[in-house]
């Protein structure tokens, strides 16, 4: 049995949302991003892992759970609000089952009721409100490898001070240890954005590997012997795995078009607009504006208007997901056989996706994954699922290459995060970092209120660094919100900075900000000191 496989398949899901939590409001629209992802992606993934484990189906998956997401998942306020969210949805789903009896929507109404009940069961009975325990359980079993990400998904190639790069990694690694009981072995660099040399700070935090977009390795030097089908070691010894385009294309291309199949659920036809207003109003936000509420009764149907969509048939859609999983597996088998012959070495095919694509956007995506895991386990011997750590243990001998600067954004470099819509941010961001570094150097042993203020400054700086703000400004949606967030964090930093330097810290002002931006409760501001960064880099270089 051992070693029969011809190559490896590593599935990498990047789960991330920016830290969105507004205690100053009772009800806040953008918090829904998190609740929707919980119901449509994070809990459904755990549901799959539970079922597969229950049936003794072996599987491997690598998932980033970014520090902002981990902080939201363990936050008491969001926990309560999430309960409110799924209970409301469940209440509506139950009403809908009654309303739709003897209609063509009965099956789909039943599906939502079943799903929201399962959400509640998983969240309350399995994980007692802490879904990180669920993920940790599968990591401890060796099925799931959880990796971290920069503290707030900071875009590292646009940082000038290395202290900022070090702080993003160090805060993330510390947060990971707190939640999962050991250090992270791998990291997802936000936006796959890599700046040559920065990996020394990964090494300094015990991180052994990260991921790159295809051309990060293809344009590396010297030429990569195995293309993207084997990891490489950076000069510092940290390994880099690179993205396979064929499997990426397979899922998302026009001609294969898995998610665009006419039998799958139509995203844009939503009950939030379809239902009678007074009936749906209790499930809308307090402003009463109709918006998507995540329950949809129609399928894509074809190229027809939204009013001509046909009713969704859950059974038919699930069969299609099974068929697509079969197709995907078949293609991986052929690809890996071919690569094995061509390379003379067992290739690793790394498929990287946003986790939220599975479920939130492609509603049947979790079904697809479940079928794929099962088929890979039972129906073939060519492909073995693997995590990067396992791969490096089996194949420690890899080529040393300096990868190229790269990202997975449009055009492959930094333009999505640096263009006319967001370039104004950087002078403010860099100034905040510079001041943060100066204060950390100046106050090596702060305590009392000064220490509290400095720690809060560190939180504000890292929150301002989230690549999400620049990204949302570029794509133009949620631009007002993202602009506001960046300005708020920067201004809060400036306010605290001025109070600290003027030796007049106002406790009330500080406490208010602590209450709003409570991410990283254990942060130590000295992570920004030049000494900390230099010592870490020096130790890692030895």
């Amino acid at each position, binding site marked *: 049995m051992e070693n029969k496989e011809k190559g490896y398949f590593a599935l990498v899901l990047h789960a991330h*949302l920016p830290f969105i939590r507004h205690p100053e*409001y*009772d009800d*806040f*629209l*953008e918090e829904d*991003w998190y609740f929707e*992802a919980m119901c449509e992606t994070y809990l459904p993934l755990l549901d799959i892992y539970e079922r597969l484990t229950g049936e003794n189906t072996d599987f491997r998956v690598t998932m980033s759970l970014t520090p902002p997401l981990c902080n939201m998942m363990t936050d008491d306020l969001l926990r309560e609000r999430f309960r409110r969210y799924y209970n409301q949805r469940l209440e509506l789903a139950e009403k809908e089952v009654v309303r739709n009896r003897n209609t063509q929507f009965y099956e789909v109404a039943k599906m939502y009721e079943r799903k929201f009940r399962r959400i509640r069961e998983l969240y309350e009975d399995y994980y007692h409100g802490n879904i990180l325990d669920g993920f940790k359980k599968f990591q401890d079993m060796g099925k799931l490898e959880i990796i971290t990400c920069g503290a707030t998904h900071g875009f590292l190639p*646009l940082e*000038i001070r290395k202290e900022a790069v070090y702080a993003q990694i160090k805060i993330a690694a510390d947060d990971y240890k707190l939640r999962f009981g050991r250090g992270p072995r791998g990291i997802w660099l936000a936006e796959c954005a890599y700046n040559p040399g920065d990996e020394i700070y990964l090494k300094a935090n015990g991180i052994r590997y990260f991921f790159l*977009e*295809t*051309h990060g390795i*293809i*344009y*590396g*030097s*010297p*030429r990569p*012997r195995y*293309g993207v089908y084997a990891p490489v070691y950076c000069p510092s010894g940290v390994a880099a795995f690179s993205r*396979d*385009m*064929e499997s990426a294309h397979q899922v*998302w*291309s*026009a001609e294969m078009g898995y998610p*665009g199949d006419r039998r799958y659920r139509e995203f*844009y036809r939503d009950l939030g607009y379809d239902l009678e207003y007074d009936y749906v109003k209790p499930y809308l936000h307090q402003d009463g504006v109709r918006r998507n509420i995540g329950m949809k009764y129609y399928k894509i149907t074809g190229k027809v208007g939204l009013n001509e969509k046909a009713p969704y048939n859950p059974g038919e859609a699930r069969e299609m997901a099974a068929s697509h999983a079969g197709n995907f597996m078949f293609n991986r088998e052929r690809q890996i056989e071919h690569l094995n012959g061509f390379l003379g070495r067992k290739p690793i095919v790394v498929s990287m996706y*946003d986790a939220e*694509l599975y479920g*939130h*956007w492609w509603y049947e995506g979790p079904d697809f994954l479940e079928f794929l895991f099962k088929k890979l386990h039972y129906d073939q011997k060519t492909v073995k699922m693997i995590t990067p750590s396992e791969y490096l243990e089996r194949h420690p001998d890899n*080529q040393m290459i300096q990868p*190229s600067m*790269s*990202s*997975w*954004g449009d*055009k492959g*470099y*930094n*333009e999505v995060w640096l263009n*006319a*819509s967001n*370039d*104004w941010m950087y002078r*403010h961001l860099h*100034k905040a970092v510079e001041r943060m570094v100066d204060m950390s150097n100046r106050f090596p042993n702060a305590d009392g209120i000064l220490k509290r203020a400095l720690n809060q400054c560190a939180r504000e700086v890292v929150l301002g660094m989230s690549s999400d703000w620049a*990204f*949302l400004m570029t794509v133009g*949606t949620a631009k*007002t*919100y993202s602009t*506001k967030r960046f*300005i*708020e964090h920067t*201004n*809060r930093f400036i*306010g605290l900075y001025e109070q600290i330097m003027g030796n007049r810290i106002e406790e009330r002002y500080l406490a208010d900000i602590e209450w709003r931006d409570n991410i990283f409760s254990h942060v130590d501001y000295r992570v920004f000191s030049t000494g900390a960064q230099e010592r870490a880099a020096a130790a890692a270089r030895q």
Partner: protein
Amino acid sequence: MTSSGQLNNKNQQPDSDYKSLPESYGNTEAALLPRDPNWMFIYWEITDNSKANLAKEHGHDIFEKARHVVRVYDVTSADSSKYFDIPIMIDARNWYINVPVGGRAYCCEVGLVLPDGRFIGIVKTNTVNLPTGRVSEVTDEKWMSVSSDFDKLLQISGVEYIGKGSGEVAKSLAQRWEMLRSVFSRAASWGVSSISSHAPAGPAPEKKFWLVADCELILYGATEPDALVTVAGRKVALNPDGTFSMRFALPDGNMDLPIKALSKDETDSRQIEIKVIRTTKNDGK
């Protein structure tokens, strides 16, 4: 999307922090950021004090007399004698810098060129290492492959997507991606197009001698932060400090760019009209 919701009554002003960011930080300084193999972004601040000192030393009309430039040094090797100047306006406070070759280290200096050619440097940036944007020429003996194999390897690794025109994926699913991107996506939706849309990269060895060139237009300006600005009739979003900039494709022909600013109370307005003519001649070889 905008935020919704009602305030917790227990709480004070939710938006107390929502004021604009500082215009300046009171230091003469500059920074350089990498954008891609051929572009960098520089921003700078020059304080009134620094300006006054320059005027004291070189004459009060120094800023009118001299050409404002960003001097771009190629600092890949220790010899920093290689540089070129890009004309700018010092009050623009930032600029996109195009460099002819990627894969090199650059550093910039904002300064003035006097009529007699002397250069007065005002402020220097950090150094930026740009990526090459192409397959390396360097091979590694221990891991070498025959070169025909390497070309095939590039193909199956996904280099085939380079130059294929961007976003077959994005195109067909454009509508859906829009929603997706707005809420969740990092750039997975752009994954396939990500290495396909920067042009003359790729394996060059089999190409003969060649030249590609193009140019774009950057328009910028500043006004009161709350003014309404239009360029060629299109409303422009101002940065919080009232500056704005836009990058246009610049095809051959004439381009008129009327820029209008209307004060917030709509009682005052200013207009500047810029006309640009581009002609491209190609020797056709």
